[in-house]
């Protein structure tokens, strides 16, 4: 009896205060005091992202807006190396320099050997990174790191900024931990899409399981980046890489990649701040087993970057919606020959513009910038 009391008392002492209900931070992007309308966005610039020397592969970009006082507008992270899933793959980063109006020379900021040495155990390969700024203005990176096996043996490695400065030449990260997401030797969870910000300064990190079957999960972190719980978004075994949109602080929509042949963009909805989810009918948008990225500009102003054709990833479209479920085509972002690939889009808002980054042929990254009314 005394032992039971000791266990429960120790637990109560160690455990932090219970988090309140998760409420989404509703986007309210405005330029010159005017709310931005999705339909008004026009492309004002585009180009290629410089690659680290000697790399042949690049994939899975993640954009992070920088603070207003920073010399740079955006940070961009991706994985790069000799080939996807190669032993030399590292997490690369660059930043958009406000003064020169160009991307800085990229550098590697995360290396699997260095991180493994700190953790005390090996990391076999690195993959998708997702960047986030916490309530204290510290950068976090969530990186796919595999154990013994391929992507199905993935775990989500949580890193936190360890450098005092966020300038690209100084930027450094240290491991917080591998997020505990599964009983089965903590495999096989991956991260891909952007963090979904909450009113308390925390966020929801969309992840998915992919050993044999696929299913999406929402992981909540508090304003300090501490793990605060997890909820399964769907048990349907073909939905992966969720991207989240807020219809209201407590009504959320998850849009997902579809693993099935001739798939459609799949959907789920929560009406209680992510505490529980229900599956929705598939959207009438085709999905060639390819990542989609959603972004909220404001109430009823939502954007979706997606590959619309079931045949492949040769076309990348931008669509808009007022509820996250009914989508209207806005414009084609890129289109190439049958073998071309424009995939894994990421979006962010910085310096009065929407920025979009995506993979080109798994070898390089490109970017585009959109401004209301086409005024840069």
């Amino acid at each position, binding site marked *: *009896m005394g*032992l*039971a009391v*000791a*266990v*429960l008392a*120790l*637990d*109560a002492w*160690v*455990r*932090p*205060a*219970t*988090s309140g209900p998760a409420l989404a931070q509703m986007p309210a992007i405005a330029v010159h005091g005017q709310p931005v309308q999705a339909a008004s966005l026009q492309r004002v610039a585009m180009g290629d992202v410089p690659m680290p020397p000697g790399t042949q592969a690049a994939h899975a970009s993640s954009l992070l807006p920088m603070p207003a006082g920073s010399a740079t507008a955006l940070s961009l992270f991706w994985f790069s190396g000799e080939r996807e899933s190669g032993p030399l793959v590292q997490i690369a980063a660059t930043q958009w320099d406000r003064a020169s109006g160009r991307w800085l020379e990229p550098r590697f900021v995360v290396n699997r050997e260095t991180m*493994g*040495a*700190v*953790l*005390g*155990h*090996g*990391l*076999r390969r690195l993959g998708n990174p997702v960047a986030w700024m916490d309530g204290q203005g510290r950068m976090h990176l969530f990186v796919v790191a595999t*154990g*013994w096996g391929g992507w199905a043996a993935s*775990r989500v490695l949580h890193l936190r900024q360890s450098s005092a400065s966020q300038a690209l030449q100084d930027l450094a990260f240290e*491991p*917080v*931990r*591998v997020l*505990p*997401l*599964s*009983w*089965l*030797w*903590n495999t096989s969870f991956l991260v891909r899409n952007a963090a979904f910000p909450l009113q308390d300064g925390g966020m929801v990190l969309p992840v998915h*399981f992919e*050993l*044999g*079957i696929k*299913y999406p*999960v929402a992981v909540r972190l508090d304003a300090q980046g*501490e*793990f*605060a*719980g*997890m*909820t*399964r978004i769907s*048990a349907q*075994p073909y939905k992966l890489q969720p991207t989240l949109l807020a219809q209201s602080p407590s009504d959320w929509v998850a849009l997902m990649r579809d693993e099935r042949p001739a798939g459609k963009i799949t959907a789920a909805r929560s009406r209680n701040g992510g505490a529980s989810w229900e599956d929705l009918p598939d959207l009438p948008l085709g999905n060639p087993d390819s990542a989609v990225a959603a972004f909220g500009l404001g109430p009823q102003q939502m954007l979706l970057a997606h590959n619309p054709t079931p045949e492949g990833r040769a076309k990348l479209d931008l669509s808009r919606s007022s509820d996250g479920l009914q989508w209207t085509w806005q414009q084609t972002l890129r289109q190439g020959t049958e073998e071309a690939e424009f995939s894994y889009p990421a979006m962010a808002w910085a310096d009065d513009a929407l920025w979009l980054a995506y993979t080109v042929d798994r070898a390089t990254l490109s970017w585009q910038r959109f401004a209301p009314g086409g005024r840069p």
Partner: protein
Amino acid sequence: MSAPALPALGVMQLWLHVGWALVVAGGVTAVLARLTTRFTARVAVLRAVAAALAVWTMLPGPYSSAYWLGLAFQAPSGVLALVCGLLGWRALRTTKGQAPAGEPAGVLGLACVGVLGGWVLLMDAFAQWPWAVYGWGFGRAALAALTVMALLPLLHKDAYRRATAWLMPGALLLFAALRLPTGNVWDAVLDPWLWVFLHGVVLRAAYRRWRH
């Protein structure tokens, strides 16, 4: 749901080595002790093997077996580490032919619950239940339920004298204080390797009961 508390990185780093040292050194020593060779019958040999394995696991970086075991399996559960530590300890103390006395029925009952619980968690990993069971392991209710369950074998007469009856309570105490190994209480009391081992324990007990 109550807020989860996860272990600090330093504590996890230490447990990775200590936990696997107990599993590797204790487990291998216990297996060797059961082999009837002149070599393995000598306690001095077993002690040397156990010490060598423990030192190997405590080495830093890629020179350590813990580095590679952690890559594949992360850290062991508290119960697995304590089970292997106990088996190794017994192997080093007992002489050949002195098999440990039988375990109280409650401990065997816990092993059966562990086998079933592992199946539940395995199915949950593949989203085969309507609820996400693994997530409950971060909450206070799961810890309370497991604590009550862990103490049940101690209600048997003289059970408190048996070390096996203290394995699960010990692992839960380790969890409550340090959140080891992951901050999820299911990981503290059961990992996939322990689950495989428990299948052997339960099947052996069932076979013995059938024969007698």
